[in-house]
């Protein structure tokens, strides 16, 4: 277990013992990445933040039953994934997509170096926008599987637990999603 993961376990054990500072530390550490994941899943910032709140309340509610074993992040993302899939299954849910505001702008340097010219910056922004667009069109389980494996670094076994499926299925979901994005990016580049 890596140091960061050990720290998470230590914080969770402290929280189990009633240390609210430990909860604060876990929230500070994980709320941002969790919001980023949930925003991609739900395509709506406000809903994502509501689920961030709900996921952390679940963590707090389950603190006394916590047993160090699997990574804390896997457990947290499993909670969040199930909340997100429940949310997406709501019949009344509107398929909204809000553009990320100024707070969510990763800045002009993302995907390009600090010496990038204006053309490269514009190109990087377009690429991000395209990826967001394609991600939003992927089936929700493909989206979740790809994000958890490729961005959050969960193993296929951990993703399978979060999605309540098999590792074989996760392998197929990740490959389909990654291939769809790769095809789209390759097509755009060949057109440009």
């Amino acid at each position, binding site marked *: 277990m890596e140091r960061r993961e050990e720290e998470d376990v230590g914080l969770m054990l402290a929280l189990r013992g009633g240390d609210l500072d430990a909860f604060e530390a876990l929230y500070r550490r994980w709320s941002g990445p969790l919001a980023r994941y949930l925003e991609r899943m739900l395509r709506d910032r406000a809903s994502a933040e509501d689920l961030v709140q709900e996921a952390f*309340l679940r963590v707090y509610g389950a603190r006394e039953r916590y047993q160090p*074993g699997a990574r804390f992040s896997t457990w947290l993302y499993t909670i969040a994934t199930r909340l997100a899939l429940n949310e997406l299954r709501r019949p009344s849910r509107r398929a909204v997509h809000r553009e990320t505001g100024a707070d969510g702008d990763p800045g002009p340097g993302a995907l390009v170096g600090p010496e990038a010219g204006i053309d490269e910056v514009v190109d990087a922004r377009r690429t991000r926008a395209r990826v967001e667009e394609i991600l939003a069109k992927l089936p929700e389980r493909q989206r979740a599987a790809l994000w958890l494996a490729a961005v959050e670094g969960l193993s296929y076994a951990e993703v399978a637990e979060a999605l309540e499926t098999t590792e074989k299925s996760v392998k197929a979901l990740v490959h389909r999603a990654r291939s769809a994005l*790769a095809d789209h990016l390759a097509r755009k580049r060949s057109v440009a």
Partner: protein
Amino acid sequence: MNGIPSSCAPFDADLSALLDGELTPDREREVRAHVAECGRCAGRLDQLRAVDEVLGALAAAPVAPEVGAAVRDRVRREAGRTAPRRRRRAPRLRRWVPAAVGAVAAAGLVALVLLDLRSEGPVPMAAREPVPERAGSEPSRIAEAVPPHPAPGPDAGAPAPAPPPTLDEVSDEEIELALALEHLGGEGEIREWELIENLDLLEKLEALEARGSG
């Protein structure tokens, strides 16, 4: 990618798993050997790798401060609601609610309000549009959402039920409050934000409890 050459077909589906480090050592050697000799698969691997780079560069927006404030506030309130206090309240509520409304179900409802707030949904952020009813916020769905990784512990021991009082022992104020709580719960589910929006009910409940235990 369309039109995968037959010589590449056995390897294409494993390129993603190769990137993710999910192949067995033997299979990884086979796939790497093929990629080393195949320009098409080497290019495809680069395309797949580029996807990860783009995904990693997507926005990691800071969470709105009010979200953190709401979580902290909720957790502090939960932490402040100590177990002894709950145990003191429950028998009292179980005594007067059934007599007040003549329904055992109402007792369970009020007990839910006071004893099981932990499993309710989020408090919607102030200054946002109202949060619509969410199926996932129902207690049964919430239980599904929390994975069994932390092994479920034994339920906290519930106090033995006290015999219900007679109607003569129940004040009009208690009856009114019980009916209001029952109305709030609808078909048996009370959400946290409904309680937050009806703090006057909780305050009355607190006052009654203080008097009852005093």
